[in-house]
């Protein structure tokens, strides 16, 4: 999932959803985000068109935030499977928006969901993407956490050598000052 690809996906989606003859600036009601949505990416893209000009946040952005929030709540309730669905939605939306900060949140949520459902390899993959995004945006908040959680996953799988490598990275970073 290279950043360029994510950006072009967003461009294409918007282009498809935006027929040139649609200048209706109808006052669309602020979307009371639906708690269940069959096909999030397509419906979200359509909403984008209308809300872009009026709202400070686009419908996609609102839906993405909403999905992240719902995912976090489900994580707290230890419902990994349901949380994963929310974070998948947030991931797609954040990619469509080319919003790396939100994508990182979605990836973190997916990692946590995978851990809850004992999919440790998958969790590690999401956390690797978290670290990748940190490098891309030059903002490393939570990287110590990510390394620590990857090590926890390796520990859970009994791969102590790998775990030790990642705990070392975690320990190296945990004493650093975060952003001021």
């Amino acid at each position, binding site marked *: 999932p290279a950043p360029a690809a994510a950006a072009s996906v967003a461009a294409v989606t918007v282009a498809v959803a935006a027929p040139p003859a649609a200048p209706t600036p109808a006052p669309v009601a602020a979307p009371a985000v639906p708690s269940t949505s069959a096909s999030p990416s397509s419906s979200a893209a359509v909403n984008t068109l209308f809300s872009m000009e009026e709202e400070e946040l686009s419908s996609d952005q609102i839906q993405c935030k909403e999905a992240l929030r719902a995912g976090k709540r489900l994580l707290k309730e230890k419902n990994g499977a349901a949380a994963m669905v929310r974070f998948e939605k947030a991931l797609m939306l954040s990619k469509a928006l080319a919003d790396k900060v939100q994508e990182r949140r979605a990836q973190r949520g997916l990692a946590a969901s995978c851990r809850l459902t004992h999919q440790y390899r998958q969790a590690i993959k999401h956390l690797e993407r978290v670290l990748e995004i940190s490098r891309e945006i030059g903002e490393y908040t939570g990287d110590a956490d990510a390394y620590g959680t990857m*090590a926890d996953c390796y520990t859970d799988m009994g791969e*102590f050598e790998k775990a030790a490598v990642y705990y070392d990275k975690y320990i190296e970073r*945990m004493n650093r000052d*975060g952003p001021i």
Partner: protein
Amino acid sequence: LETVPTIKALRSKAEAIRAAEFEKAVSRLGDGLSKKQLKAVEELSKGIVNKLLHGPMTALRCDGTDPEAVGQTLSNMEALERMFQLSQVDVTAMAGKQ
């Protein structure tokens, strides 16, 4: 490598404490906080835990070349498991309990 489960158990214990105190604080803070402020409060809670655990965590990690260092790491491990009662947290840890 014997200390790996201890590191995980200590992390879990600390995170449980942090999350509980953070939730308590959030309920006291009410809705008057912006997202950014809430983030700052969460960073505070994580910062304290990370800075406080850095020493003990470092003490649990050493490459297993120097036999004296290994011995000290193991005695650190035992002390931490006693002090933080980590044997209850992680079944793979075999610590002497009080």
